[in-house]
């Protein structure tokens, strides 16, 4: 992963968090709301930790792992781009919960 890749990752994490933040929870079922809370928490933590991190200070191992996770986050961003229904968006974003949680931990 290069510094430029890291910047792209920061942008993608911001986009994913934004999409989750903007979902109108009133349109979700009770079960979906719970899922939304979990993914939103992971995405915000990943977003803040990415803001707090400096690429140069990351270990080689972390950079490698980030490279892999960056692919997942990119897929989430692209996957939800064409969807309009909140539950469909949540469906795509919810699948990335694990990747977001790992990302937040790594940074």
């Amino acid at each position, binding site marked *: 992963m290069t510094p430029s890749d890291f910047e792209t990752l920061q942008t993608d994490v911001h986009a994913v968090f934004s999409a989750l933040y*903007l979902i109108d*929870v009133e349109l979700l079922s009770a079960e979906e709301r719970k899922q939304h*809370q979990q993914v939103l*928490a992971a995405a*915000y*933590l990943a977003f*803040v930790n990415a*803001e*707090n991190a*400096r690429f140069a200070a990351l270990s080689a191992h972390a950079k490698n792992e980030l490279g892999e996770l960056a692919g997942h986050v990119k897929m989430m961003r692209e996957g939800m781009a064409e969807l309009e229904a909140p539950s469909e968006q949540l469906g795509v974003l919810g699948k990335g919960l694990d990747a977001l949680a790992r990302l937040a931990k790594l940074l």
Partner: protein
Amino acid sequence: MLQSIPRIAVCIALVLTAACASKTPLQAEGLATTGKQYTTTLKKVNSFALDHTLEFTASLLPNLPRDNTTLLTQTQAMQQRAELLQTTSNYLDTQALYFAELSALAKGDTSTGTTRALRKLVEALNKAPDVGGIPRVSKEAVAGLAGHVASWKHGAQVREELMRGAEPVAHALLLNQHILQEQIQWITQREALARQVEYREKVLKPFVEDKKLSETWKNAWIKHIKQVPTIELLEQAKAASIDMQQAWVNVLRGEGSFEHLQGVFNQLNSNIQAANNREPNTHDPK
């Protein structure tokens, strides 16, 4: 022709004398005051950036899972943010002290205490904050700046000090600029999200639900159209920060003045204070 030579010589001598007699920006009142105003402005933005992030996060927390782990991890992330902003604030204090000591030296305080303090402060400036979230700035970006020191305009001790401090100070000012840009990004991104939710909840929903629209609705609609004053303010701080970098080069060259910047920083300081006192624009996404 021969008669005119002495006149030309007199004129040149007069011009040179006038140039030497005119005060450099360092000798005139200004650097200490402007340096203080500059660092105070950036510290206010720094503090505003933290408050804004905390407000946003505090509004978000009720919509996250209500368990110990969530609260702990989100709190730790904010503590890390507060820590890096404190480091930035300390670094800005060092810069204000440097400007004050340099100003004292230029006004004739050549005591050992002043020169020793300046040396220590340059050492401290050379150790730029090394914490996450604060971008690194290459020292090469300001390499060769000592060459701008106009030797004939400064006294020996000031000249020596400027040669030593030229690049570390320029580096610090450039780093401040990058930090400011980061902070502006934190604020603008959160502000944009908060505004979208506010529009949906306070403008769009009441409107399409065909309810009676109150004064609150009208105000929310008008507010949505107007530009966010905070963002405008941050852009002004960014412009003033760039001006400060140019002012430093002018200090080295022994030309220009701080009058313009003093006015700008005065205005910015009071505007940021006013923005700090206003109710934060963060919203509950529910």
